[in-house]
């Protein structure tokens, strides 16, 4: 077949496409009752590469997003943010840009557009959310121009999963548009700290879940993220913008949550340990502080235990505490913690057994006690069908202990059972 006529091709393509998609038949486009600008409350801004729609909203720093005000984010101590970023401390917290994108899909690659990019920033006593929107896909050059100018005014970004999604996607768009993306700028990705703090307690660590439980912010009729590409494509094809405000609102809430959550976390790491936090979050703060402030980290762990942290998180904290004691060579304290771990009914974990045996053998010089521990561990390991590697390690240790005991003991005693 040579290049066929349109009808034939349409038929062919329809069959190819039929598998993956189902679309309702096109309705005749209704002309919008009002302009896009008035519907979305924004205005058209011109750049050297054409116009785009920009929507601005300003909030006083006292604005409460759920139970949290925005002020804490503006006033966050750089040292507090240093605990949340791989890049260390920012110069000033209020020179960061809170960023979230809405895209035409999650597939990645060069065919996924960021059609709405929302940024939030502090301006004196106000927090502004500014949203840049492509009214059609050919406004990308204008969008990138506007963003580039915006990015230049700030020191870095705060995102939620920006490392994995928003920033690489924007970088792709910038490269396509032949522009330089500030990829090396300072960056706080809150997803990491959020996982440390809440994965123990929450079903997942999506922003929507965290904001509800931590910030007590409830979205009213939120547009689910998964529907956003569909809504945008519908708008493009039928020029029907009626659902667009819901995307803008969704994006705005994401940015407000991002700022509020930054404030919450920055505040918590400064105040910790405080008993008004739940034990899981205290344990998470202990993790965040471990390297920077070991004393406060230990205090957080202890308070988490006092506040009734439950399994299996309790054992994880006990292990970390024991690790801390070991580092200080406080062997008896460490041993007590490891013994607390093995006393708890849970999955078999070889590490505390091994550590206790080592304390008996090397520190207390009590070979018999070490042997008893290893024998018990080995029995448990076999019962729990531990890996060959684990079994071999215990067997090896036991063999060595038996050899050393034989050598150390009087032959008459050696004949007797231990």
């Amino acid at each position: 077949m040579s290049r066929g006529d349109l009808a034939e091709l349409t038929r062919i393509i329809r069959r190819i496409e039929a598998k993956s998609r189902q679309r309702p038949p096109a309705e005749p486009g209704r002309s919008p009752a009002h302009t896009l600008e008035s519907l979305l409350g924004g205005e058209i801004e011109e750049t050297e590469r054409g116009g785009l729609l920009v929507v601005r909203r300003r909030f006083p720093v006292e604005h409460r997003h759920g139970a949290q005000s925005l002020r804490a984010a503006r006033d966050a101590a750089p040292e507090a943010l240093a605990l949340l970023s791989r890049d260390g401390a920012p110069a000033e917290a209020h020179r960061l840009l809170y960023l979230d994108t809405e895209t035409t899909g999650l597939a990645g690659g060069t065919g996924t557009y960021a059609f709405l990019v929302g940024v939030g920033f502090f301006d004196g006593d106000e927090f502004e959310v500014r949203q840049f929107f492509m009214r059609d896909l050919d406004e990308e050059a204008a969008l990138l121009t506007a963003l580039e100018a915006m990015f230049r005014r700030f020191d870095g970004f705060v995102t939620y999963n920006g490392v994995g999604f928003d920033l690489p996607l924007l970088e792709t768009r910038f490269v396509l548009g032949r522009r330089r993306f500030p990829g090396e700028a300072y960056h706080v990705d809150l997803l990491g700290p959020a996982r440390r703090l809440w994965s123990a307690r929450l079903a997942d660590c999506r922003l929507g879940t965290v904001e509800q439980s931590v910030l007590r912010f409830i979205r009213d009729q939120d547009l689910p993220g998964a529907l956003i590409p569909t809504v945008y494509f519908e708008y493009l094809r039928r020029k029907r913008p009626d659902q667009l405000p819901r995307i803008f609102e969704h994006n705005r809430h994401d940015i407000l949550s991002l700022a509020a959550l930054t404030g919450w976390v920055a505040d918590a790491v400064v105040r910790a340990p405080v008993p008004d936090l739940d034990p899981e979050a205290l344990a998470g703060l202990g993790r965040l502080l471990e390297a920077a402030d070991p004393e406060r980290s230990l205090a957080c762990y202890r308070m988490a235990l006092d506040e009734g942290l439950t399994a299996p998180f309790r054992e994880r904290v006990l292990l970390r505490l024991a690790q801390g004691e070991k580092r200080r060579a406080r062997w008896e304290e460490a041993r007590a913690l490891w013994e607390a771990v093995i006393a708890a009914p849970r999955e078999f974990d070889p590490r505390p057994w091994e550590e206790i045996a080592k304390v008996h053998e090397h520190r207390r010089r009590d070979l018999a006690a070490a042997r008893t521990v290893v024998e018990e561990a080995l029995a448990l390991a076999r019962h729990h069908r531990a890996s060959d590697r684990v079994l071999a390690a215990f067997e090896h240790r036991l063999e060595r202990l038996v050899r050393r005991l034989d050598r150390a003991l009087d032959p008459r005693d050696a004949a007797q059972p231990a």
Partner: protein
Amino acid sequence: MQIRELLDELLTSLETGPLISAVRHFEARPAVFAPFPSSLDPRIVETLKARGIEQLYSHQATAFETAAKGEHLVVVTPTASGKTLCYNLPVLQALAQQPEARVLYLFPTKALAQDQLAELTELARSLPDMRMFTYDGDTPQDARRSVRARANLVLTNPDMLHSGILPHHTKWVNLFQNLRYVVIDELHAYRGVFGSHLANVLRRLKRICRHYGASPQFIMASATIANPGDLAQRLTGEPVVELTESGAPTGEKTFMVYNPPVINPELGIRAPYLGEASKLAARFLRQKVATIVFCQSRLSTEVVLSTIKKMVEDRTGDSGIVRGYRGGYLPLRRREVEQGLRSGEVLGVVATSALELGIDIGHLDLAVLAGYPGTIASMWQQAGRAGRRSGESAAVMVATSSPMDQYLAAHPDYLFGAPPEHARINPENPFILINHVKCAAFELPLGAGETFGGDVTAHLAALEEEGVLHRAGEHFHWSAETYPADHISLRTVTSDNFLVIDTTARDAKQAKRRQIIAEVDWKSAFAMIYPKAIYMVEGEPFEVQELHYREDEEKVAYVKKVVVDYFTDAITAKGVWILQRLGRQETPGLLAEQGEVLVAEKVVGFKKIKMGTLENVGSGEVELPQQEMQTTSAWLTIDPGLLGRISSRRDDLVDGLRALTHLLHSLAPIFLLCDIRDVGSWLGDGSPAQTGQVVTRETMRAQLLQGETFTPTIYLYDNQPGGIGLAERIFEVLPDLLARGLETLEACGCRSGCPSCVGPVNEVGRQAKPIARAILKFLVPRR
């Protein structure tokens, strides 16, 4: 013993001598050398000298100079002629002199890329700052970023370029901005569907390069085919210089055709060729002659391997000197065999065409081809696996009983004299093209007037109507959530596959296990895995319990292990209808046409056939949907007047025409670089009443017998949806195809049909052969 003596013994022995139907002797040819080009970087010269290379073969020097002039080129030289230096020299030169230059190598398989990386690393040892990496499905995720950032030479395959590199071109800015050369080795592998896809992938590659301001030069290498330059131009869309003169020396070589003895003259049955090939190979292996045996399928590889192992075992006490090599073996095992062959530890190897591609296995003395590999090009490739730059080597082709093999055994002049086949591609296949238009739009919005190979305005409009593209201003943008390359395989036209799942274990343990034992492509599924069909995997029979094929469900066949003594053969109803006539040629007695057709097929039942005796022991009915495909076809309508003069009996004429259809179909691949299954055939009616109404062969026969008019038409169609250029070629070579058909019938010793010409007599009818012959005699002009 010298190979010369062994060959003489084969020729003169009373047992084997008469079975050698042809011998050709090829004289040794001395090397033609050329000095190192003066511009060649001294460090490269140094390395070559360190490896004992004091001067180049003439074709290597010519390739270097052609590349230096900035021209695209394709080098066509035989196996073991040092063709890799033809592209490695210009590439290393560029990298040595321009640190920012980037180069992309494409190989059809991952293994070849690995091989070539090892060779390049050796060659580039004394050059500074060479950062060469493979980038394919085996590259670990965490290593990919560093390859993208660091590599100045990337070795990959078309599939990875298509789905992993082009759609992420922004991550490869450095590569695309500075892309100096694109090297494509094993060019002949890119034919048919794969080649049609590659041509489109290269259109996309060039488009991305243009976006970043680069225009790379293509350096290609191909085994001998009829149209390397033409194929290279079609693939790259650029004018290409063809270099075919090899300066490499070749040793003396003998090529023989061995035709297994006839053991049943009445039915025209010959001794099984696999057994004969095994015997021949064992005979030479016992005398310590390094031997490679090429088989046509994975199954026959295993059969021949075990037969040879048994034969050589009793003499050497160990059969480890003979190994197998085929697709499906794990890479580690393959590497082990390759290494063993190079070191000489392995003396013999039984392989599929997987070893035909440029894997380095050192030099062997004898190649045994168990059956004609389907193409002249492949035959020379396989024969070329035995051969040293000095000293003697040989190749023996053992003929099967197919019409093609028997024709070649009887016409050695044709075999040795025929030009190799044309590699055909059709980048404009609508299914293939439309998929790559989607990928291209995903990569960069397509301009409203932009061409993609040719004009694609209609394609863009259609894709917009379907909603996967969106026009904004002067550009069409990708506007779907999907990643189109993920759904497009370069190895098929359409990508739906059926999974075959073994439920035997599930019944026993009630465990929800998905034991996938095979994959069957959409096209063959209905003829192979219909309910109650026996599906064989490695010799074990499974019965199909259920087949799920509806649009909204996962495509699977559930099968269960059974103990049966029969296999099943599908009864298919078919129909072919002409949609559009594009070419026409009238000669006395014959109207030949070419164009687009609709082919419909439907499996309506099956026969149970007893293993061993091949008796029909039962049958069953099947309820399956009809499959339709639009494709290209050539078709022949023979003048009813002529038919009337040949016989007055319509039934005999139909038998003769059926026989003719079978014959032309089996001989067509002589002219095409393709497999026999890539072409379909059907004897239908030129003026059918109901389009879309499929019939079985028997019903078709009845219809032809009873029809008011008698206009039987022979269709030879391209078996890929949309066509990949085979039908057009058949139409072009039709006079030659008919002549080959007549020669085959005349050379065949059987009286009324055998598997080697028109098919077994008990299937085709007593009059089939004489009538087919009479028709051909009239249609083929006397020489």
